[in-house]
């Protein structure tokens, strides 16, 4: 595939201009949404119905307990929904889902991973798709928003352990943020040619006499939240490479826009909530730098290594070309979305490696809805710790001391994802029966396993699709990686928020390390790169580098 630098630049400029124009208004809206004391009528109804006291200010432990309880109930409900599909309405004749697949899928959607171990068109009907998975697409994204909002409250508040109300934050995130944008987005998608019907699967007899199965369905409405909530579970198995999900260059660009919209707006929300817009701009700069550099590298790797390794052109959508593929692949792996408009397994090895590096950064540039910002804020604490010492002060973040207690939480946070990824990969490759699930030979087979665990533990959801993950062992291991990769960091983030909230605020002076400005951006960028991606260097060497670097 050829790279048209001009075309790629044009598309990037369009994204930069539109996101640049929208991120501040969006941030303002988000900040207002989560700071407001007023409840909508429909929200009040929901609270009454579920017995929630919306004025209750929750201790961080209560906030966490609510979140975990909600997620566990969601997982159980989603598993039950799939197992009982055969007897529930709107199943389009599809029966009960395999229990391992159902378990993996439930955890996958509740953790905002949306790893697809199933082929949707042959496994799930309208009912599960719309009332099960799509609902979780909204809710899991709203959970991410709630966590980051709670963390920011922890930084802003002082001498309290309360972080707000999880149920209120969850409801507002879903109803006031995700739903309205989804409705507008779905209309735009339909205009660009994405299908939306209740027709189910059509069977056409072609002129040659062969029969062609053309599945339809409420695609646009599913598609929009799949991208907006950085979920990534497609209506079709081919995901956004399917022409009904992503028909043309325009829809492709709009889908990338949807992926990036909320993650890139959250820094603006952060800046407003902490009362210093510069804080937001600095994080935005770090996120943007990673995104732009990575997109450029992806474009280069796609074009320069076309035809190497397993990449012989199969699996890549010619209608998007290198530009559209680079744009989408980068956005989806940097944001924990995991939707794909090409088979990542078919990317040239170094491009595939880059997709892995994007995830290995910890999904922080800009990262998933909510999770991206809280991930980057945790890494900011590390940057503040090291930078703070370098200016001769015991470190503080926005006036809150970073002591041993905070560092313990951050230290465990840093450990979680690499441990899950590397341990999962190591176990899989050391058991031949498991390793056989990745059929490719040599380093590429290893890459498929490494990609799977990187994607699961970072809650991305994209895959080197050659791997078969529906077997009990892999389905369980990946589900565990998704579960702990999501909820351990969340628990640590909320505990961190609680410990920040308890402290009194220390005033800023000229001797305080500024957490804004280019200097801090460089420090933070360096920390992100060294602390996260470098951990995986040896593993990457055995996978994509071994496959892609040829002498």
């Amino acid at each position: 595939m050829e790279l048209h630098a001009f075309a790629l630049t044009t598309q990037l400029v369009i994204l930069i201009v539109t996101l640049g124009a929208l991120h501040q208004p969006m941030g303002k809206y988000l900040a207002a949404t989560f700071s407001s004391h007023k409840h909508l009528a429909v929200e009040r109804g929901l609270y009454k119905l579920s017995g929630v006291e919306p004025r209750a200010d929750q201790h961080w432990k209560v906030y966490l307990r609510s979140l975990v309880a909600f997620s566990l109930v969601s997982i159980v409900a989603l598993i039950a929904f799939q197992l009982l599909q055969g007897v529930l309405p709107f199943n389009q004749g599809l029966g009960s889902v395999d229990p391992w697949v159902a378990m993996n899928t439930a955890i996958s959607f509740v953790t905002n991973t949306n790893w697809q171990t199933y082929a949707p068109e042959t496994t799930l009907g309208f009912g599960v798709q719309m009332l099960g998975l799509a609902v979780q697409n909204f809710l899991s994204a709203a959970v991410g928003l709630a966590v980051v909002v709670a963390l920011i409250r922890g930084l802003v508040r002082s001498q309290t352990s309360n972080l707000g109300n999880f149920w209120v934050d969850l409801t507002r995130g879903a109803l006031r943020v995700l739903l309205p944008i989804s409705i507008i987005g779905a209309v735009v998608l339909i205009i660009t040619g994405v299908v939306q019907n209740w027709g189910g699967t059509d069977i056409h007899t072609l002129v040659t006499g062969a029969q062609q199965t053309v599945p339809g369905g409420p695609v646009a409405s599913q598609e929009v939240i799949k991208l907006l909530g950085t979920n990534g579970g497609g209506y079709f198995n081919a995901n956004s490479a399917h022409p009904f999900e992503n028909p043309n260059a325009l829809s492709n660009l709009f889908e990338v826009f949807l992926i990036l919209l909320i993650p890139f707006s959250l820094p603006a929300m952060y800046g407003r909530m902490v009362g210093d817009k510069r804080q937001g701009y600095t994080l935005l700069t770090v996120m943007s730098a990673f995104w732009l550099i990575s997109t450029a590298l992806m474009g280069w790797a796609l074009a320069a290594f076309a035809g190497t390794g397993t990449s012989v052109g199969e699996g890549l959508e010619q209608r998007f070309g290198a530009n559209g593929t680079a744009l989408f692949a980068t956005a989806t792996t940097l944001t924990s979305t995991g939707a794909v408009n090409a088979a990542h397994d078919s990317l040239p090895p170094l491009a595939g490696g880059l997709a892995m590096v994007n995830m290995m950064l910890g999904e922080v540039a800009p990262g998933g809805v909510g999770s991206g910002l809280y991930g980057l804020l945790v890494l900011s604490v590390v940057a503040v710790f090291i930078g703070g010492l370098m200016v001769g002060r015991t470190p503080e973040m926005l006036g809150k001391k970073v002591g041993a207690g905070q560092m313990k939480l951050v230290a465990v946070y840093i450990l979680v994802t690499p441990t899950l990824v590397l341990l999962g990969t190591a176990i899989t490759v050391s058991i031949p029966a498991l390793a056989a699930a990745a059929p490719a030979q040599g380093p590429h087979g290893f890459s498929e396993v490494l990609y799977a665990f990187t994607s699961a533990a970072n809650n991305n959801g994209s895959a080197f699709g050659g791997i078969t993950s529906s077997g009990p062992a892999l389905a369980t291991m990946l589900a565990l990686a998704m579960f702990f990769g999501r909820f351990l960091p969340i628990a640590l983030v909320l505990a961190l928020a609680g410990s920040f909230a308890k402290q009194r605020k220390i005033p800023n002076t000229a001797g305080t390390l500024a957490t804004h400005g280019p200097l801090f951006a460089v420090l933070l960028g360096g920390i992100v790169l060294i602390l996260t991606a470098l951990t995986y260097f040896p593993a990457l060497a055995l996978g994509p580098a071994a496959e892609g670097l040829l002498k």
Partner: protein
Amino acid sequence: MNLTTLRAALPLALSKLNPRLMIHSPVMFTVLIGSILCTAVSIQQLILGSSTAVFSFSVTVWLWLTVLFGNLAESIAEGRGKAQADSLRSARTSVMARRRSSALVPAGQLAGGEPDYEEEMVPGTDLVVGDMVIVVAGELIPSDGDVIEGLASVDESAITGESAPVIRESGGDRSSVTGGTMVLSDRIVVRITAASGKTFLDRMISLVEGATRQKTPNEIALNVLLASLTIVFVVAIMTLAPMAAFANALPSPVVLVALVVCLIPTTIGALVPAIGIAGMDRLIQRNVLATSGRAVETAGDVTTLLLDKTGTITYGNRRAVAFIAADGVSEEELIETARLSSLADETPEGRSIVELADERTEGVEAGGLGATQTLSADVEIIEFSATTRMSGLNLPVGHPANPGTTIREVRKGAGSAVERYVSERGGMLPAEVQQAVETISGTGGTPLLVASHNGERAQILGVIHLADVVKPGMKERFAELRAMGIKTIMITGDNKITAAAIAAEAGVDDFVAEATPEDKLAVIKAEQESGRLVAMTGDGTNDAPALAAADVGVAMNSGTSAAKEAANMVDLDSDPTKLIDIVGIGKQLLITRGSLTTFSVANDVAKYFAIVPALFAATFPGLGLLNIMGLSSPESAILSAVIFNALIIVLLVPLALRGVKYRAVSAAQALSRNLLVYGLGGMIAPFVGIKAIDLVLSLFPTIG
């Protein structure tokens, strides 16, 4: 650092190899485990006659050296304190104390008329708090205490290193004496305030020896981060084994251990204790004792400095700065008279008037001045008294400075007093002098009027302007502090006008005038309420609550034991200006820690590029492209990285002990500089170092 200190530190470093001690440093403990593992593997390879045995042994030796170098850094830092502790200990020789018993000596047995108590000789170690002991000239004071009777000059050089004796007297703020110091003259009665083994000297010895050293909060937080990084890399490399086996490229355990040791932050892990000890040491070298390492760390965080005006910002005494003559009076005449009036005045103010007068008339052909230079016996000295508020001289007829035929009176004093004196003798206060008095008062100065009376009409000759003089360089220091984000508050007993004038001249950010000790406490509380950390100095007993409340309280050694007890630092030189240095030392400690952490972490990039291609290039030739340093062989690459990793510890020991160069600049400037030097430098240095070591190693065919 030289060979002698190295040799002295080596046994200590070896004794620190004890795993029970090593476990306190997670990073170095990991290296220790790795070294033991590699030793076992190497021996096994040797027995099996494996061809890689030589390489394995080389790596193992350097791993052990890495552990040893880490311990050595700590031992050297501790050794520097030891020498100091030994010299202190010599002052703690046990002495016999003359304890005063509560019973009175029966009347009639007394040589003199005064009642006296019985005395008994007891060993100094038997003294308990509350005992009274008598110490006379030539005796050592047996333990810490307060003087309750008498006055003596005391040689405190054993503790302060200052040879000039100091005066200690009962009552007031100079009553505390320290065990181990010697009374040079007179006799004092001391009430013991510290039990044996808990005296100031004992505390000081244990401090400099590091016996009571505990990890500071920031050190703990840093260790948590380092432990986390260590675990991440241990996981990364342990999981690498099955992954490499999957690719049929399983490296030997020695190589994997080498990779772990290179990646975990050994540099900073090895140097953290040394940095902490060296920070304390720097304070001790400036004659400041901190009660804990935590206090040093807190000093770096201080955002508000509470400074006493007197002695810290100004010289403490009002000094004459100008003479303003009345109309019709020549300046020479005023200066001459002012000088006369102060000749017998031994107060600092009086002396400063004489000094200024001498300075002003220097070079001028002295007319009558020579005559006024000395006091003869017939001159009547009028001492200052609270009722007259004037001082001066009555010059007899015939005195060289009295050309007249009656006694000449010269006076200087407070405005109203002199005005009354003059008006009673037919004189008046000229308007322009009145004007000058008001101007001087308005700027915070003190005006003194000079008058002369020779039997006729008394005359006011002019005004002496007394002012507090700000020490040179203070303004610049306060500006530096401001750049570092530290607010300075001046505390003074002066009135508002005076205080404001001095505050403006010195450039402090804020001041509290007419301050009482309670005000100090209130200011500290208010600052802390707004989240700031406060440092202050103090010496009096009434400073004790404020010293205790301050985050960093520095007591003057000349102060009372109550003040010293409440403070978390004691300045042996009793120099309140040192507070600013203490803040600098605290900052330097933290900066050194942060910079070396950055350096250590940044080093990893190069080590990956050295070791990863060495591990896998045989299986995947393409990975040889990552060998951007062009290292000669896989074995040499790994060994070079390990050697660099060990040597960099030794190379950085002097920096850890000396501390990273510290400048009084803003946070942004400090960060950009340190990020450049230790971040970027830390990225580049190992590329150069590893390549250089590789070049040397490639000369040895058995390895390279």
